């Protein structure tokens, strides 16, 4: 029997530049922390990073580090260390992997970037609970560990419409952080600098949106799996010029692919949407699983969560509050359903995959009947995959494979 040629996802050329940018970012943080030249703030991924940058902090994101622990498949060995000190295997596996890594004195940064020995020691920890309560508990542990303050914003949750009252509340909470952050930074907040940072964040986010929307083309020039990698600068470097320049380059490459009719997956036969967290330790396997079946997972809620149309340099505090509140994860199901229906239409989706992540209830949207409601209204079939973002003990590769293959058979039958 002739060997079947397997379809692979194509490499994005801009990745090399992104890798250099990320290296510069981590070396910068390491220098700040080891020399004390600049203060280091740890921030949740949709925390008030704009404010921190405007105050001159180097900003480090533990969620990004936790995702690295997952992607390098280190997390499953580290999670038990956190479990053993009372952090349950049922709570966020970003938290347990990251705390486990700290307990064991391990970081993937050391392997990736020669000379870096540890994560950068923080001067302050700043959270926003817009994603979940776990980030606050996560930072509280580090606050005790390093003896530095953990401050932040407690956001409303399950919001359908973001109202002025919500924005007032969060905006005031962000402003209330300023005196403490000024004291630690040893400088006063320069409002012009804050406006400029917010403006840069807005520009970054607009470009990231354009990058993701190239996937409306058929065939799609990029996949969800590319997105999870290339979102790096949008997560850790929003509010900087370097992120903007990077996304211009990436957008140009993807636009050229569209002009050339080149898809990320050859002979794209199914267009899929991914709802929920990636399974970081299975990115390559999942990418191959879908591409071998000529299916392109091309859009996702996760990657789109770093699009913040509300940022407005003219009204920095309130627009930051609005941007952080408008996040998908903050919203109630009525909003989420409308959002998903819009995405399914925009990207011409044939099927939607919900990842039910065992340790991440906030990012698992299959638990309150939402897939059934969306499917009933759109007629677009859905599949729920059980797994986890970082704890591979909760992942069954064989079940995933059978489910995905059967789902694609079902989509093909429905045509």
């Amino acid at each position, binding site marked *: *029997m002739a060997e*079947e040629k397997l379809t692979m996802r194509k490499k994005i050329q801009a990745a090399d530049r992104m890798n250099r940018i990320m290296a510069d970012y981590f070396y910068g943080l390491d220098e700040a922390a080891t020399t004390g030249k600049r203060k280091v703030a740890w921030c949740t991924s949709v925390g008030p990073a704009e404010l921190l940058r405007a105050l001159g902090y180097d900003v480090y994101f533990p969620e990004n580090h936790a995702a690295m622990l997952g992607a390098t498949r280190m997390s499953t060995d580290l999670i038990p260390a956190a479990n053993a000190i009372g952090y349950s295997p049922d709570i966020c596996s970003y938290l347990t992997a990251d705390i486990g890594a700290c307990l064991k004195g391990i970081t993937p940064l050391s392997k990736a970037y020669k000379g870096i020995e540890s994560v950068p020691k923080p001067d302050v920890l700043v959270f926003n609970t817009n994603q979940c309560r776990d980030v606050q508990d996560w930072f509280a542990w580090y606050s005790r560990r390093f003896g530095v303050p953990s401050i932040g914003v407690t956001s409303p949750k399950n919001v359908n419409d973001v109202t002025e009252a919500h924005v007032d509340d969060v905006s005031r909470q962000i402003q209330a952080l300023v005196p403490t952050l000024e004291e630690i930074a040893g400088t006063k907040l320069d409002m012009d600098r804050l406006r400029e940072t917010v403006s840069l964040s807005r520009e970054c986010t607009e470009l990231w949106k354009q990058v993701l929307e190239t996937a409306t083309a058929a065939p799609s020039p990029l996949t969800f799996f590319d997105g999870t990698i290339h979102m790096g600068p949008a997560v850790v470097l929003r509010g900087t010029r370097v992120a903007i320049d990077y996304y211009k380059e990436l957008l140009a490459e993807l636009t050229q692919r569209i002009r050339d009719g080149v898809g990320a997956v050859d002979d794209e036969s199914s267009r899929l949407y991914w709802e929920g967290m990636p399974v970081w330790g299975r990115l390559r396997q999942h990418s191959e699983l879908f591409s071998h079946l000529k299916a392109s997972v091309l859009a996702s809620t996760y990657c789109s969560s770093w699009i913040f149309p509300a940022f407005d340099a003219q009204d920095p505090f309130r627009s930051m509050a609005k941007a952080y509140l408008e996040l998908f994860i903050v919203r109630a199901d009525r909003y989420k359903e409308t959002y998903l229906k819009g995405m399914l239409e925009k990207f011409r989706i044939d099927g939607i995959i919900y990842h039910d992540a065992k340790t991440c209830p906030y990012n698992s949207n299959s638990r309150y009947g939402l897939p059934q409601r969306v499917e009933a209204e759109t007629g677009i*079939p859905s599949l*729920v995959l*059980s797994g986890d973002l970082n704890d591979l003990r*909760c*992942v*069954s590769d*064989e*079940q995933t494979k*059978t*489910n995905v*293959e*059967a*789902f694609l*058979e*079902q989509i093909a*039958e*429905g045509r």
Partner: protein
Amino acid sequence: MSKPVYVGLDIGSSRTKVAVVDSERRLLGHAVKKSGTDFSVTAGVCLDASLEMAGATRGEIVNAVSTGYGRSNVAFVTGQHKTEIGCLAKGCYNRFPEAITIIDIGGQDNKVIKLEPDGRRNSFKMNRKCAAGTGAFLEEMSFRLDIPLEEMNGLARQSREMVKLGSYCTVFSATEVLEHIRHGKKVADIVKGIFYSVIKRVLEMDSPTERVVMTGGVVAHNPYIVEMAEEMIGRSVLLPELPQLAGAIGAALYALEEKGEANG
């Protein structure tokens, strides 16, 4: 005289099932064996047994399709495979050509598959990464109770007062069973409770439509489970003649249809 046949191999985690059909979709031969640790050897033994029953030889195989957990381990017969979900749908719809919900209770996973009146799949669900409610759960319970697996059906039927198990988890259920034994509950009542738990787990995966078909080894070897399911669903359940073979027959039908398409 040559006898063209089409073969379906369902290499399950617990049992290997092979079905042989002719071009008229008639089942000519079949075999079932414990999968063991060498899937291809077991598949070979089952293949030869089912071919012998069919009065055919390996040389007369026109086309073959594999399915199940070890579907990639039978390259010596075929490189074509389909999912168990697709094959169960194909096999059941061939027998019951109408809108149906298939409930399959397998060795390590359960499936609920819904078919449209024209046989197209509407949806499917597999159990989460947990063996509670599957054949593996029954095997564990038979071990804990020190009862041969094949005696469980007869015991459950003797029950007069079922003992319900409350736990999701196989390990916790085992502890619960031991506790009931300590409290002097009858084994037959506990076994019926175990059967009840199996059906309950599978029924909570999805809501069945009007016509329900049950398949799988657990159903084939424990007809009392089907009776209990009928009581719980509130209507009668359809059963193929060989519930354990439904997936293998579906695979054989795929082999037949795809060869037909290729030739056509």
